[in-house]
């Protein structure tokens, strides 16, 4: 057994401390959070595994370079307040990142302990610190003297929230414009409650409001005002409008009743709370649900469908499990909950009845061929292998692209063929003077932390730009 009580343990534990979780049988019936979070004892045990490396590789793997050994050391010393302060020096949304960051491919992937055994559970520790702080009540930092400069932030996803917070801390007057009625972007409408409780997103937004940031929900740039008009009114603009436009496959039957884009399905469930009978928005249920895709979005859709009461939920993905872009942890969770994985399978047609309701999905088997541009082996259909899966609901989760609304009536903003905005990687500067951009609108669908990283860099660049003005 370990020595706890703050004393540094002599020998680091080999195995990482497991995360307490709701049992799969229970959680598949509710929308409560799956992972329950470390207890203090768990956190101390896990923190003690960190070697406090002189050249910590983990920090290099973190897109915003959180001082990982630094905060973990403070956890070991039971200075949780100090630990969270350290994290917040570089990461404004630790309660969110600690839950949804793909740590296994970022900080934890580079942790030296991972070379031989299991890396330090950095994400879980981050979450522990953030939750500890929330329980204590979050302190609002002093805001400096106003600089007199005004910045508009368009979009309230992780990119916009981070940029807004950083700019406010520098004394600029920030207004955030959001087209939906709630702030948070994908954090609010996309990622389900059981992975990221909406209360946490709400508290983060509240914190940023306390920094003096004004939020204007129900405000669409491109409709109420153009980007050009914003440029006239504000000293600088940050675009964090994300990549919210759903892609469809273009196969026959895709407009039958019961075929959803993942965005619609998840928006109905998360933002509009269709799972709660007290709320008016509905979502169609089915005994059989087929989800097409292999990313986090597909996992979230499948696990939501299961919780809504579907008997059988299958994920249909055209490559193998190795190639799936979803986080490992989420794939494991989905499996434990009983989601069926139909790999190397691709839908070719959706079948319906005379009332236009979906009845089944016709699929074809695939095999892996030569590597494509992404470096992954490309799927090739196996001729004559068609078969059908019964389904009353089909969710298409095959990616998104930037919403073009903001480009309406605006001049001089360069876009790529895919509809993403061209922006400098280090500063977020676009071809349009005074307009900076970051997050999914620049990269295409990516991650929360990369969007935050972009928001941070842009805030710094905007500050410099404003000083030159």
């Amino acid at each position: 057994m370990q020595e706890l009580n703050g004393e540094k343990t002599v020998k680091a534990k080999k195995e990482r401390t497991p995360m307490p979780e709701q049992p799969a049988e229970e959680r598949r019936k509710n929308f409560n959070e799956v992972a329950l979070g470390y207890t203090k004892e768990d956190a101390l045990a896990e923190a003690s595994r960190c070697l406090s490396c002189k050249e910590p590789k983990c920090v290099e793997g973190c897109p915003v370079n959180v001082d990982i050994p630094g905060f973990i050391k403070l956890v070991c010393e039971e200075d949780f307040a100090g630990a969270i302060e350290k994290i917040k020096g570089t990461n404004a949304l630790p309660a969110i990142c600690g839950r949804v960051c793909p740590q296994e491919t970022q900080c934890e992937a580079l942790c030296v302990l991972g070379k031989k055994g299991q890396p330090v559970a950095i994400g879980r520790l981050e979450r522990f610190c953030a939750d500890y702080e929330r329980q204590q009540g979050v302190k609002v930092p002093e805001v400096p003297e106003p600089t007199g400069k005004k910045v508009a932030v368009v979009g309230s996803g992780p990119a916009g929230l981070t940029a807004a917070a950083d700019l406010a801390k520098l004394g600029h007057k920030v207004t955030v414009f959001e087209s939906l009625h709630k702030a948070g972007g994908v954090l609010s409408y996309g990622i389900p409650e059981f992975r990221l409780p909406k209360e946490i997103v709400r508290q983060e937004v509240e914190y940023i409001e306390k920094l003096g940031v004004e939020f204007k929900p129900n405000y669409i740039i491109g409709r109420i005002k153009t980007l050009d008009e914003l440029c006239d009114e504000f000293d600088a603009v940050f675009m964090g409008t994300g990549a919210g436009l759903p892609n469809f496959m273009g196969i026959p039957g895709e407009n039958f009743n019961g075929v959803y884009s993942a965005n619609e399905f998840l928006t109905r469930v998360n933002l509009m709370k269709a799972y709660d009978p007290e709320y008016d928005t509905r979502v169609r249920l089915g005994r059989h649900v087929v989800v097409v895709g292999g990313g986090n979005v597909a996992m979230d859709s499948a696990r939501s469908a299961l919780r809504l009461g579907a008997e059988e939920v299958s994920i249909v993905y055209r490559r193998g499990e190795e190639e799936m872009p979803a986080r490992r942890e989420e794939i494991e969770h989905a499996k434990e909950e009983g989601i069926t994985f139909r790999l190397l399978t691709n839908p070719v047609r959706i079948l319906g009845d005379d009332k236009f309701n979906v009845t089944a999905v016709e699929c074809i088997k695939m095999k892996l061929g030569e590597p494509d541009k992404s470096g992954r082996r490309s799927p090739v259909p196996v001729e004559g292998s068609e078969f059908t899966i019964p389904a009353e609901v089909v969710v298409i989760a095959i990616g998104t692209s930037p919403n073009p609304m903001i480009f309406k009536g605006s001049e001089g903003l360069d876009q790529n063929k895919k509809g993403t905005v061209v922006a400098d990687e280090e500063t977020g500067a676009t071809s349009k003077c005074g307009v900076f951009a970051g997050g999914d609108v620049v990269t295409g669908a990516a991650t929360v932390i990369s969007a935050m990283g972009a928001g941070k860099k842009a805030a710094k660049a905007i500050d410099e730009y404003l000083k030159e003005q």
Partner: protein
Amino acid sequence: MAYKVLNKEEIAPSVHRMVIDAPDVAKAAKAGQFIILRIDEKGERIPLTIADFDKEKGTVTVIFQEMGKTTKQLAKFSAGEFLEDVVGPLGTPSDVRKLGTVILVGGGVGVAPAYPQAKAYSKAGNKVISIIGARNKDLLILEDEMKDASSELYIATDDGSKGHHGFVTDIMKQILDSGEEVARVVIIGPPIMMKVGAGVAAPYDVEILVSLNSIMVDGTGMCGGCRVTVDGKTRFTCVDGPEFDARKVDFVQLMNRLAMYRGEETKAVEKYDEECRCGLH
């Protein structure tokens, strides 16, 4: 954020007009656009056409028919109360230009969206021939307003209680047959009326537009729930529309998609009526 209701009146049985304080929306609004509103935290987002707007006063007017739970709830509002959310203006504005003669056909509450268009087409220098209809004369809305906004106004009722005994499309056909040179026909109303109207006008050498009312969630192109097939391609009503070339619209698909939640909606209304009767709400 809350949006104040400044006025609400019943202008025909189960049809209500509501004036909402929403300066940002009013300032940007154009004919052919709509808003999405949410009554309260638990409410759904429902789209309603901007039937009128006043940029000076900062108000938008909607006209709605009681259909299901949300519109019934909305009907209970009175001046001074607040809506949780109003977002807009949404949708691509109508392409209003000087074309010559334009026929505007409005059926049922479809007259409400036809009204700002009548004003806009008139202002652009067109001869506007409006044809409005309803099941009977009591259900007819905006007669005076439409008269003021149009060069000519015709009325049709299904039961003959006012104007032509029959359908608005009968009058539309008569005008198209009369040799009057018509550049464009705009038909707004229940999907079945738009489908039939589009069919009647199709053989004539005239542009035909319809305003589609597919089921929506966000209204910004994000959910894809409002998709319709136009010219064999999938389009999103909320951003690509709501107006489309009637000859190319797949109306059968639209009507089937509108029926998607019928079962759940009936249940919601029954539950709501039940709760209202118990006097606790």
